[in-house]
């Protein structure tokens, strides 16, 4: 028995489309600016556009992770037949037991890992925002060097975040 709830659709939008295809690709593009393989007309504006992509939907992503435990838990099966017909006195212990068993079978670790990865990525972005705000209006390659190495760290953390979100289940599983 399985359900594919809205959370799964939102995960596709946020993790696959926005984070991986949007943010990580933009960061690699920014890395290209720093190394000189991409030459935009306005370096500072291009870099800002790339790195500010995080701010577009990072709050939504954080919210998605917080929603996971509620929306992807098998306890939601108790909201629909046949389990919704379960007597209240049985449901009162069976539903939380189902949820707890699900968490104990690796789910707690996975969601905690995803949340930790989010925090690491977010703090790396805060650092690079500070770095960018110190750049001159027409930065040279030397001016961009500190940002270059931070970008690599940022890309790695975003990728780790994306991987941890991909590792969460794709369906509400029965335990």
């Amino acid at each position: 028995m399985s359900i594919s709830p809205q959370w799964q659709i939102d995960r596709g939008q946020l993790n696959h489309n926005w984070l991986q295809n949007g943010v990580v690709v933009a960061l690699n593009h920014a890395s290209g600016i720093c190394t000189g393989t991409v030459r935009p007309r306005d370096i500072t504006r291009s870099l800002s556009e790339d790195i500010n992509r995080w701010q577009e939907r990072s709050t939504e992503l954080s919210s998605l992770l917080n929603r996971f435990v509620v929306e992807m838990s098998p306890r939601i099966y108790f909201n629909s037949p046949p389990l919704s017909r379960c007597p209240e006195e049985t449901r009162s212990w069976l539903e939380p037991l189902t949820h707890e068993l699900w968490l104990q079978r690796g789910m707690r670790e996975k969601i905690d890992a995803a949340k930790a990865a989010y925090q690491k990525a977010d703090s790396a972005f805060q650092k690079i925002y500070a770095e960018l705000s110190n750049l001159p209006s027409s930065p040279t390659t030397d001016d961009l060097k500190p940002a270059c190495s931070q970008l690599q760290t940022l890309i790695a953390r975003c990728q780790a975040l994306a991987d941890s979100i991909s590792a969460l289940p794709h369906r509400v599983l029965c335990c």
Partner: protein
Amino acid sequence: MTSSDHNSVPNDTTESATSSTLPRILVIDDMFGRQVQGRPNRERANLCGMYGLRDVTGDEPFPSDEEVVNPTAEAVFFRGQQPLCATVGDSVENDLGATIAFVRKGWHTDANSGPTWALVLLDLCFYTGAVTPDSNNAFAGMPVGRAGDDDARSYFGLTILKRLREEFPELPVVILSSKQREEVSLLFTEAGALGFISRTDSAGRSLLGEYLWRHGLTPDPSGTVVGTSLRLLLALRKARREAEGRQNVLIRGERGTGKDLLAQYLNRYGTLDNERRPFVTVDCGALLPSIWKSELLGHKRGAYTGADSDRQGLVVQANGGDLFLDEIGNMIPEAQEGLLRVIETREVVSVGATSGRVVDVRFIAATNKSIEKAAEAGTEFLPDLLDRLNFTKTIWLPPLRERRSDIPLLVERFVREAESSCEVAMNRQIRPNAMNALLAYDWPGNIRQLQSVVRDAVNSHRDVEYLVAGHLHFGIDIPAEAENNAADVIPPIISPAVDLPPATEPVAEQPERPLSTDPKNLNGSFDRLVAGFHEQIADVVEACLSAYSDPLTGKVNYTGAYRLAVSPSEQSSNVSGDAKRWFRMLFVGKNGLVAPLPAETVAKRPLLMDARRWACGSGS
């Protein structure tokens, strides 16, 4: 939802015209291939920057505000879905038919005279469904997605991949995806992809370059080996693969196919690092008994009378690079022994030297002979050297008749070369009748012969602005070497009759008559009709054979006659093989579904009798 016509590309993209030598790749991806109204596709621009791609799709409404430095390839993007440019309220659906049609547009077909795909980068997961205000705000024109879109068992990218493998088996496809490789590796491998690039891999640009080198169908960017036909590109790719790791290589092919140019190509592009290395050519037939040692191995001062100084041999000159042994089948046995020693020991001992010198040389040998037969005879070629060469990689260069679509490029090159080498020659246009004649001929002497014919035409007609069919003199030239696979060699050149009326005219000229329903007239009418039909087919085929008959010798160019009779859309790249099969079908039928020409119809026509002997063997 816009309905799709699988025979055309809706919301047509217009590719930018370029004269670039960059390979052209096709990227099939829902997000990066989508068209965006009113603003640049920022995601696509970022992807291009990341992978070193120059976007030539031609659907961007605004000029790019950045430049990709030293791009790896030109890229055309395609969404794989309908509509290509979606807005709020639209429903985005996968469109396999339009995708395949788009791929076909850029593949090796008669309808395409432009650049062809070197490689396809293919996404796996395509999101479908409604475009809502929220999803449009996130990514313009992108849908919300449906639950099954993200299910690995039903990735639309795998559906596309399987169709591509069926319809374009030689087209290299590499997956470009943000999915984790381990999750999808078995799926895409079984479906026929050649590799995988993670969309989030920072080394994606160099990885793409590697895939293009190893799998891409790319012409020679230096222009040394001219051509863009599929046969040639497959040979170039095989050459790069076989030469990887600087292994010795044997190049085989008919005379005049450009084996020396392929050797130069290997020297330049035969390794991934594209480093320039020494390239030394040895004319093996010119190594006479008195000079081969000194030429090949070098000598010390005083080694013999006349050796006034040290001399580096050709092998040492090629140290660190490639030694090209042209026509190794012509090398005298003593030189073969000396060469064998060098190949085995990787050491050169000059004449008069007391010790050897270690060398790092790749040996690229070329021959149009059957050195196996010579080795069997035991006199002309050393079996040990043959064994050494047979352990190396072998690359076959196709004859010109199997890569006819390259003829226009070669003709253009040779015309300009001939004009520039002859100061007074005028710059000329090549008329269609001349090009058709050049395309129809079978070139037993291959590219060298083509060059000779074109040069002769230019030199003989210096003061004209056009190259026409009448300027071309093909001459009679039968290949001397039996190794040119005599069974398939077409009899020599005959100038085609360019004014032959289309074959359909005899049929079209039949007066239309109203069909009589009188039983007396209909009695036996079908048999009479079939007999008349056979006579007419025989008349047409005989006329085509006659057009390609040499009036002096009576020899017939069967491939030319076939090309005249059968429309180009029915012809494949293996025209000589097609010609034989087609004539055979005329005389023996096919699988009980196609009836042969009646024997009495053929017996009345000597040209058909000869054609039957050629196609079916002399016993028929």
